[in-house]
């Protein structure tokens, strides 16, 4: 009997305490696939913002991978519980969320005085449709061959300066020299497929120029994925596969396995973005790292200063959230975009900025300064197809290319498969994404 009384009182007390919490804080969920360095930045932002606004709680939610993020984010949207502030890479995926009415129109915010001077309008390209802006861009990425200078020396291969580049023949000669020296010329993680796509995208741009993809995917009259350069890019890629430019079994190798080959000095080159540098400097601070450009191809019409790359991380606000939360979300977005906070972002993430904010170069590793300079010289940044396109096209593109690498599909078949799905998406009204 006594025991029952005690239990009842305890349970009652618990409920009393639970309901007597102080006034509800406004919760801002902040979703991103952070990674260690950027998470540190997010935590600093959270601490500073909460200190200035005791009634707000910033909840940082971390995701292990882009795919993880995408799956959870789409579920959250479908469940009507979107995070207030979330990161996006822009492009076709953001467009599909905008079309579904899930993303707040940030045009007014981005036309505020500070934003006009700080955020170049060209950097809004990936998040603007019909003249409306939907996200605040933060950083950029660019694709280069990251190289191991020591292995270049060992194989007797001259490192071409970053202001110029190899021809296709010189590139192939270098590959042969590496092979003779018993060095893997290029590491690539083919299992995740997007690494293979880097080669194809560069080859298309080198062959046909920067317009080719945007015009073709957006169904401009006279453009088709079966045009000659799409097939030829497939064959040039296959040429690399057939001459053994990549490591053995590369089609089944993961990003981690490719990274392992490059970091441990077994492979001379790795076509990647600056995100590899954080891990590299953590494990191998003295690595003889450098970058070179993707080679040109015979008869190519593309500008060799063009780079694969894009605005990478943007932040956006969900449309369907309570007004008081939305108001704080706007304010928080302005807060993290403050000059000093953006500089801090650059220092921690070691990424080139998409905002007009000067970062003292001594805060960056030398190779990154090179990446930034090369990016500023670029005539065009080609956004990755699988980020720009609707997911269904992206998947067909990636799958077919992996099949070409495995020899189970010809470049012609790949070109046809891409054209077929583009037509299908145009019939469904998903393409074009923009008028070109």
């Amino acid at each position, binding site marked *: 009997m006594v025991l029952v009384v005690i239990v009842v009182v305890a349970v009652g007390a618990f409920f009393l305490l639970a309901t007597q919490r102080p006034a509800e804080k406004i919760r801002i969920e902040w979703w991103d696939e952070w990674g260690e360095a950027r998470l540190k930045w997010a935590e600093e932002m959270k601490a500073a913002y909460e200190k200035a606004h005791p009634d707000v709680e910033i909840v940082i939610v971390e995701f292990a991978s882009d795919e993880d993020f995408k799956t959870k984010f789409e579920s959250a*949207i479908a469940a009507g519980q979107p995070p207030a502030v979330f990161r996006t890479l822009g492009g076709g995926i953001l467009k599909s969320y905008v079309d*579904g009415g*899930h993303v707040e129109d940030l045009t007014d915010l981005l036309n505020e005085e500070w934003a006009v001077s700080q955020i170049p309008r060209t950097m809004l390209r990936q998040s603007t449709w019909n003249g409306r802006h939907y996200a605040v861009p933060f950083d950029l990425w660019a694709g280069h061959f990251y190289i191991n200078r020591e292995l270049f020396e060992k194989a007797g291969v001259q490192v071409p300066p970053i202001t110029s580049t190899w021809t296709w023949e010189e590139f192939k000669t270098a590959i042969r020299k590496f092979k003779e020296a018993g060095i893997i010329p290029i590491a690539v993680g083919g299992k995740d497929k997007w690494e293979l796509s880097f080669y194809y995208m560069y080859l298309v741009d080198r062959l046909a120029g920067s317009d080719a993809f945007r015009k073709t995917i957006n169904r401009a009259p006279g453009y088709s994925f079966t045009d000659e350069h799409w097939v030829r890019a497939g064959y040039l890629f296959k040429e690399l596969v057939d001459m053994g430019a990549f*490591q053995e079994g590369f*089609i089944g190798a993961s990003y981690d396995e490719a990274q392992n080959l490059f970091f441990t000095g077994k492979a001379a080159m790795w076509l990647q973005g600056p995100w590899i540098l954080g891990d590299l400097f953590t494990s191998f601070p003295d690595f003889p790292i450098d970058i070179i450009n993707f080679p040109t191809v015979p008869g190519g019409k593309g500008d060799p200063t063009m780079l694969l790359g894009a605005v990478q991380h943007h932040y956006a606000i969900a449309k369907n959230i309570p007004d008081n939360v939305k108001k704080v979300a706007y304010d928080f977005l302005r807060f993290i975009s403050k000059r000093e906070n953006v500089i801090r972002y650059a220092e921690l993430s070691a990424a080139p900025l998409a905002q007009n904010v000067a970062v003292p170069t001594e805060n960056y590793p030398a190779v990154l300064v090179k990446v930034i300079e090369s990016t500023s010289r670029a005539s065009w940044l080609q956004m990755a197809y699988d980020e720009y396109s609707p997911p269904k096209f992206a*998947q067909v593109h990636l799958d077919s290319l992996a099949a070409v690498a495995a020899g*189970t599909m010809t470049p012609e078949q790949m070109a046809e498969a891409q054209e077929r799905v583009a037509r299908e998406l145009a019939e469904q009204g998903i393409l074009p994404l923009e008028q070109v």
Partner: protein
Amino acid sequence: MSLPALVFVILFIYYPLVQMFYLSAFRWNFVNPNMVFVGLENFTRMFLNDQVYLRSLLNVVLLAGQSSAIQIPIGVALATIILRYRRIGGLFWAIIFLPYVISSVAVSLIWTWMYNPYFGSINVFLRAVGLGFLARPWLGDINTALIAIFGTVNWIYIGLTTTMTIATLKSIPPSIFESARIDGLSGFQEFRKITLPLLKELIVVLMIIDIAGAFKFFDLIWVMTQGGPSDSTHVTTTWLYRAAFRSSEPGYGAAIGVTIFIFSFVIVQLLIKITRSRLTR
């Protein structure tokens, strides 16, 4: 008392099942409020135009078939050996059962590294013993990737088959074996005439487990190859996941789910029927 359980079953099994059938008739991308009704289009696409889906069905059949053909005989043989040499048998049993207890993602990662063409212990071993010509990129070659996955699957599940066989054999009264020995049956005769017939029921159960298991198999393949290289190792579940979440086509993914449901339902019903008629004879 069973009400809460019922609620859970309805909420997490029957409701999603109905939802799956419903979704399979639509074209949708998760985020667009407009779902387009397409009737049976997802199904015609699957069987007429989707080579990878058909390949994934074949892979499920191969997986179920090889699991039955390899795991059951080896499991039965190991069980017989373990029971005969009880003293070291216990230790041996523990060792072969161990893989089944490890999380399958961990197992997949371990084997992915073992299959690695450069650092993997398998190729290193082959080269060390002078069989370097056999070394290959196991998971990076369309001719060996599926076989490599089967190897890992068998490594995990032989322990389970063995354990179930041991449990069944232990439940057989020893007097049967004793009288067999008195009647002068050799070890092999004893196995063929007594042990095997008594294991018939178990073997059917194991086959059902293998078939049902093949249809719901996912994690190991997803971690080891993601269905690659060149879509050669997809099973129906990995292809479903790819369609629904990578290509953002939940309607098509649901349609694949419907076919998985129908296939496994029919096959298991069939097997149960066969078992019943045989066992009651």
